[in-house]
C-alpha cells in the first residue's frame, strides 16, 4: 500500500510538472454562475487568457449555483475554507468586508475611473470589490400599448410623475385588455424585493435605513414619506393594479410577452426576450414620486478573500479581467450592462444605437446603490417581509414600525455595524 501511494504521488507530481511550464502558484476562485454555460465559457476564457499571460499564477475556478452561493460562502468562511478570489453580490459586500471575509483590493484605481458607480464596491473608504458589469431595471412596455392608451412616452429628462404613472395604470385597467396593468415580479422572492422596490421608496423620500448615520431606520422607513409609499404600495394590490405575492412564477416569465400585463417592472437580463417577442418593446425610466426617479444598482463583483495568502496574485487576476473586451463579452453573452462607455461601444446591444442602450443611460441617470452597510443583509430581509405583508393587506403604519424596530434591534445587537 505504501509503495502504491508513493508511486501515485510521484505520478501526480510528474503530471502537474508536465502541465505547468513553471512553478506557478495556484489561486482558487469561486463563482456564482454554475448552470449558466455562456457565463461559464466567458469566465473560463478570461481565466485561460490570464493563466497563459504570465508565469506566476494559475487561477482555478469552482462554480456554485447562484441560488445558494451566499450560503456556501458563509458556510466555508465559518469552516475556515475560503478560496483566494470570491465573487460577491454588491449590496452584500459590506457585510462580508466588515466580517473579515474580504481584504481590500490592491488594483490600480486609475483603471476604474471611467466605471459606472454601481460596480465599484467601496466600504469604509476602501475598494473591496469591483464588478465587470451592472444591472438595471426598467418599466417594460410596448409602443403600441402607449399609443392605444394615449399615453405620453416618458424620457430620462421628463419621466412620468407618480400621478402620470397611476393614470397610465388606470388607463390600462380601463381598457380591459389586460389581466393586470402592471407586473412587478412579486413571484421572485429574495433580493429582488429590495433591489427592485426600495427605489420606489427612495423616490418617495424614504429609505430602508437612515443613510446619514446608518444607525437607525426610524424616520426613514416609517416617516411620512415611507407611510405615503406604503399606502401607495398597498393600493397597487388592493385596487387590482398588480398581481400579489402569490403570482404564478410562470406568469412572471411569460405574462408580459403573452400580453397579460401592460407594463412590467423587469431587469435588463429579461430585455432580449421581450425584444425578440415584440419589436416595439420599450424600456421606460422609473417614475418620479417626488424625490427623483430611482432604480437600483450594483450586481455581482469580484473581491479577494481575507484567507488568501496571495492577494497580489488575486488582485492581478481581477485587474486583468477588467479589460474592455471581457466587459463587452459578458454583456454580449448574458445581456448585462457594460460598466464603461468604451466597452459599451464594443457591445451588440449597448452601443450608441443598441437596442438596450437605454439601460446604460438609465443606470447612469437614475441608479442608486442599496444602503452601503453590513446591516443591509438583515435590512433587506425585513424590508422584503414588510412589503409582502403590506401587499397582502397588513396595516401600513404598524408593519413599517415593526420593520423599523427589527432593523434597529439588529443594528444595536451588532454594535452599530462599525459605522
Amino acid at each position, binding site marked *: 500500500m505504501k509503495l502504491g501511494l508513493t508511486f501515485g504521488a510521484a505520478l501526480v507530481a510528474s503530471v502537474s510538472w508536465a502541465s505547468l511550464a513553471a512553478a506557478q502558484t495556484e489561486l482558487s476562485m469561486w463563482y456564482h454562475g454554475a448552470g449558466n454555460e455562456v457565463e461559464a465559457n466567458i469566465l473560463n476564457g478570461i481565466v485561460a487568457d490570464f493563466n497563459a499571460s504570465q508565469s506566476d499564477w494559475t487561477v482555478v475556478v469552482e462554480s456554485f449555483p447562484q441560488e445558494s452561493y451566499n450560503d*456556501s460562502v458563509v458556510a466555508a468562511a465559518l469552516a475556515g*475554507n475560503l478560496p483566494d478570489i470570491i465573487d460577491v453580490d454588491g449590496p452584500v459586500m459590506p457585510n462580508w468586508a466588515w466580517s473579515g471575509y474580504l481584504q481590500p483590493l490592491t488594483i490600480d484605481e486609475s483603471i476604474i475611473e471611467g466605471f459606472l458607480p454601481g460596480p465599484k464596491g467601496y466600504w469604509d473608504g476602501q475598494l473591496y470589490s469591483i464588478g465587470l458589469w451592472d444591472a438595471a431595471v426598467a418599466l417594460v412596455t410596448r409602443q403600441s400599448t402607449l399609443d392605444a392608451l394615449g399615453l405620453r412616452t416618458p424620457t430620462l429628462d421628463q419621466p412620468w410623475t407618480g400621478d402620470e404613472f397611476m393614470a397610465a395604470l388606470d388607463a390600462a385597467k380601463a381598457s380591459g385588455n389586460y389581466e393586470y396593468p402592471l407586473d412587478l415580479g412579486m413571484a421572485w422572492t429574495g433580493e429582488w424585493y429590495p433591489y427592485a422596490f426600495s427605489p420606489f421608496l427612495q423616490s418617495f423620500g424614504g429609505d430602508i435605513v437612515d443613510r446619514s448615520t446608518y444607525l437607525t431606520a426610524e424616520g426613514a422607513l416609517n416617516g411620512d414619506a415611507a407611510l405615503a409609499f406604503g399606502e401607495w404600495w398597498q393600493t397597487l394590490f388592493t385596487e387590482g393594479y398588480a398581481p400579489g405575492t402569490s403570482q404564478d412564477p410562470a406568469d412572471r416569465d411569460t405574462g408580459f410577452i403573452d400580453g397579460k400585463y401592460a407594463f412590467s417592472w423587469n431587469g435588463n437580463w429579461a430585455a432580449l426576450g421581450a425584444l425578440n417577442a415584440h419589436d416595439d418593446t420599450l424600456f421606460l425610466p422609473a417614475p418620479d414620486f417626488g424625490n427623483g426617479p430611482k432604480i437600483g444598482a450594483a450586481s455581482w463583483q469580484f473581491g479577494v478573500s481575507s484567507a488568501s495568502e496571495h492577494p497580489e496574485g488575486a488582485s492581478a487576476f481581477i485587474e486583468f479581467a477588467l479589460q474592455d473586451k471581457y466587459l463587452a463579452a459578458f454583456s454580449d453573452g448574458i445581456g448585462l450592462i457594460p460598466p464603461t462607455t468604451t466597452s459599451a461601444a464594443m457591445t451588440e446591444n449597448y452601443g450608441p444605437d443598441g437596442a438596450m442602450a437605454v439601460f446604460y443611460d438609465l443606470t447612469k441617470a437614475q441608479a442608486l446603490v442599496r444602503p452601503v452597510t453590513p446591516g443591509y443583509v438583515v435590512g433587506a430581509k425585513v424590508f422584503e417581509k414588510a412589503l409582502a405583508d403590506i401587499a397582502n393587506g397588513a396595516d401600513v403604519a404598524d408593519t413599517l414600525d415593526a420593520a423599523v424596530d427589527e432593523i434597529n434591534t439588529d443594528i444595536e445587537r451588532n454594535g452599530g455595524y462599525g459605522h
Partner: protein
Amino acid sequence: MAAITQDNHGLRLIMRYVVLTLIAIIFMFPLVFMVMSSFKPDLQLLRDTSSIRAFLPVGDLSFDNYRDASSRVPIGTFVFNSVLVTGVTVLLSLLACSLAAFSFVFLNWKGRDVLLSIILATLIVPFETIAIPLLLLVSQMPWIGLEGFQVGWLNTYRVQIIPWIADGLTIFLFVQYFKDLPRDLIEASRVEGASWLQIYLKVVMPLAGPVIATAAILKFLVMYNQYLWPLIVVQQETYRPVMVGLQYFFQLNTAWGEIMAYLTIITVPVLAFYLVLQRAFIASIASTGVKG
C-alpha cells in the same frame, strides 16, 4: 367466501380495481405532469399548466430538455455521487441501527433505558437547527486515511456519509419491530449456548425482512434528497449530489422544461431501488407472517 356467486365475485373484483385506480390517479398526477412537461418547450409547458394538457403528451414534443439539461449539469457525476453516498450510508445504517435496536430490545444492561430515551429524544431535533454547529464540528474533525493524518472533513464523501449513519428513526423502527418478535426464540437459542452475535445474525435478522426493507427505503429517501448538508460541506463540483444540482436550473429565467427533465432522470434510481426492495422483501414476507 363460498356463498358468493361467481358474478358477484367478479363485480367486486372490478370495483376493487376501480377504487385502487382512482386513488392511483390522485397519487400520480404531479409525476405525470413532471414527465410530460420534460418533453415540452418552456413557453408551452407554462401555458399548459392551466389545463388538462399539462398531463398529456401534446404539442411540440422533443428530447431537447434532456439534451440541454445534461449539458448544463454534469448529471452523471451528481447521480453517481448521490447513489454512492446513499448506498453506503444505507448499508452502514442498517447495520449500526439494527445492532443497537437488538441490544435495546433483547439484552438487559445498565444504562439501556437512558440511552434509548436519549436516542428517541434526538428524533425531535430538526436537522436545520443543528447544521451550523455540526459544520463547525466536522470542519475540525481529524481523519486518518490512505493519505495520512488530516484535519477537516469538508469536500469528501465521508462528510456526507458518516454523520448520517445512525439516526433515531431507524433505530426506533427496528426497536418497534423487534418488540413484536417472539422472545422465546431468543431465550431458547441462548439456552442452546448461541452467542449474542449468532442470535443477531442467525435468528433475528432473518426474520427482519419487512423492517429492513422499510428502513432501507426511508433512509434511501432521506439520503438521496440531501440538500442543505452537502450545500454547506461540499464546495467542489466533483462531490456534489443531485439535489444541489437542481439549483443549477434556477437562473433569472428559470428553465422549467430542463428542470422537469432533470427531475425525471434523478427520480429513476429511487423508483428502481424501491421496486427492487419491494420485490425482494415485502412481497415474499407478506405470506410468512412471523407473529404468533
